[in-house]
């Protein structure tokens, strides 16, 4: 319960930050623009014509749900990678702000366990990522659903996947912050994890082209623990566009991602419990 109170405070703090106000306004503006400027003519479930800003877009007549698949695919990739990059930049300061002199002493004097503070911060950031991703994807589903009559919840599920992927990255950022209170270092750790996640996606192919040696062993070890974010993004895209995918593979991917985040959080809590402020 205390962790939820910490998470609630973080969300209140985020609501006052320009980063998140700008994101909310930008997403709302984009959705409104789409709502106003996009004209879709649907006849008997088929998309007959499309107009954007009054200009016709040429395409063959096809079923509306099929026509929307690439749109949802692109949107899911934007939410996934755009969300990761935005999250790394905009959330880098939450950990350092929590540990700032004059604030952490006060928080630690309250009847709050140290792990509850970290868990609350993590949950708050996760809720923030979920809110942003779900708002963008649900908004898109609503706009396109209203115009085509095609209603699907998969893009929203895909957005949840993106938020969980960011959760694993943020766990790393928080762990680094507990060692060194620096927003820049936290952002650098997040960016490094995103890059490593991309490399882990193509791990097998990269290992094939690397010569034997310490570097290869190091790379193999490092990319074996980092979640392959590209695979998660592909799975999110497949979910959003109703493309076939292997549920077992996704479950394994998610379990690995959550285990990675849990391990990093455990390291962060271990250090936080021992640190003096």
């Amino acid at each position: 319960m205390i962790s939820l109170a910490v998470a609630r405070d973080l969300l209140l703090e985020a609501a006052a930050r320009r980063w998140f106000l700008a994101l909310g306004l930008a997403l709302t503006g984009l959705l409104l623009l789409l709502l106003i400027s996009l004209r879709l003519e649907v006849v008997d479930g088929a998309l007959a014509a499309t107009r954007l800003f009054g200009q016709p877009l040429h395409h063959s007549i096809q079923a509306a749900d099929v026509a929307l698949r690439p749109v949802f695919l692109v949107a899911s990739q934007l939410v996934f990678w755009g969300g990761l990059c935005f999250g790394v930049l905009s959330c880098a300061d939450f950990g350092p702000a929590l540990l700032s002199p004059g604030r952490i002493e006060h928080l630690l004097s309250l009847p709050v366990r140290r792990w509850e503070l970290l868990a609350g911060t993590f949950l708050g950031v996760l809720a923030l990522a979920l809110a942003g991703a779900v708002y963008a994807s649900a908004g898109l589903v609503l706009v396109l659903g209203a115009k085509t009559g095609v209603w699907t919840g998969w893009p929203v599920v895909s957005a949840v996947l993106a938020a969980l992927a960011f959760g694993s990255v943020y766990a790393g950022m928080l762990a680094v912050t507990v060692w060194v209170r620096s927003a820049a270092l936290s952002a650098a750790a997040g960016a490094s994890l995103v890059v490593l996640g991309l490399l882990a996606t193509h791990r097998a192919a990269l290992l094939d082209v690397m010569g034997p040696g310490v570097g290869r062993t190091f790379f193999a070890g490092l990319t074996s623990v980092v979640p392959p974010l590209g695979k998660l993004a592909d799975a999110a895209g497949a979910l959003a566009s109703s493309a076939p995918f292997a549920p077992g593979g996704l479950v394994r991917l998610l379990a690995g991602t959550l285990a990675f985040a849990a391990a990093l959080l455990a390291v962060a809590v271990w250090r936080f419990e021992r640190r003096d402020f």
Partner: protein
Amino acid sequence: MPAAFAVTSLHKRFRTRLGRTESVALDGVDLEVPRGEAFGLIGPNGAGKTTFIKCLLGIAHPDRGAVELLGGRPEDPRSRARVGYLPERLTLPGAWTPRAFLASVARLKALRPERPGLDALLRRVGLADAGERRIRGFSKGMRQRLGLAAALVGTPDLLVLDEPTDGVDPLGRVEIRQLLAAELARGATLFINSHLLSETERICTRIGILSRGRLVRSGSLEVLTRVQQRWRVRFAPGPVAAEALVALGFEPAEGGAWEIAAPDAPALNRALDGARTTGALLVELDRASRDLEDVLTEALAAGAA
């Protein structure tokens, strides 16, 4: 009376990242503060006062020694739930209102933040009219008052205040002193860390002097400021035979008073009888005392020796 807190042989050293000892912050501090007392910890900058508070509240981990806080361990949230703490430099969320901040503190203390209670707290610290203003526009004194209000959330049994009147104007200091007196009257224990000796003198009944991580003096304010075997006397206005008084051992003091050293009551009375024979009429007798600044200076000099 049970202790509000007791520390035994508290040691704390700060180390560099490479593990080398950088400084000794606390070097074997023993201190027990009974419940319901107002205790002031004074000392120069870097004496270890803030580190002491941090070890007391579990914010820093002592290297050695034991800390008992309200009958429990500082790591136990149930002990800390009964403590109100005002840090030296409290960082407040600038975008929030004071009411939102106090509500957050109440939630973190597992209390239900209710508006009447929060408003009453804001009234107590003189921020009744600022309840809806953003904290970022607050002056240093207003921030300090809000920090004090946060410390008072949940009517704590022990108030640990690090420089509570720092940045507060003289009128505000009087209000804070009255507020702390009310807390003391309700049975709360006050532990105040301040470099403002006059403030400490006015609020606290017992004082500890910390120097280089050691508690060099500790005791009631009266005992610490008393000059042993020395008395301050005042005679009725009129001609006083100064030379005769000096011959009896009296020394002129400030404001027309006299001081005399007397090892015991008979010696004091002999001196007073002698003064009366010179025609001097006694109207006031008191133990000679020093102010806290003198006590601190002397204690620090003794600690440095």
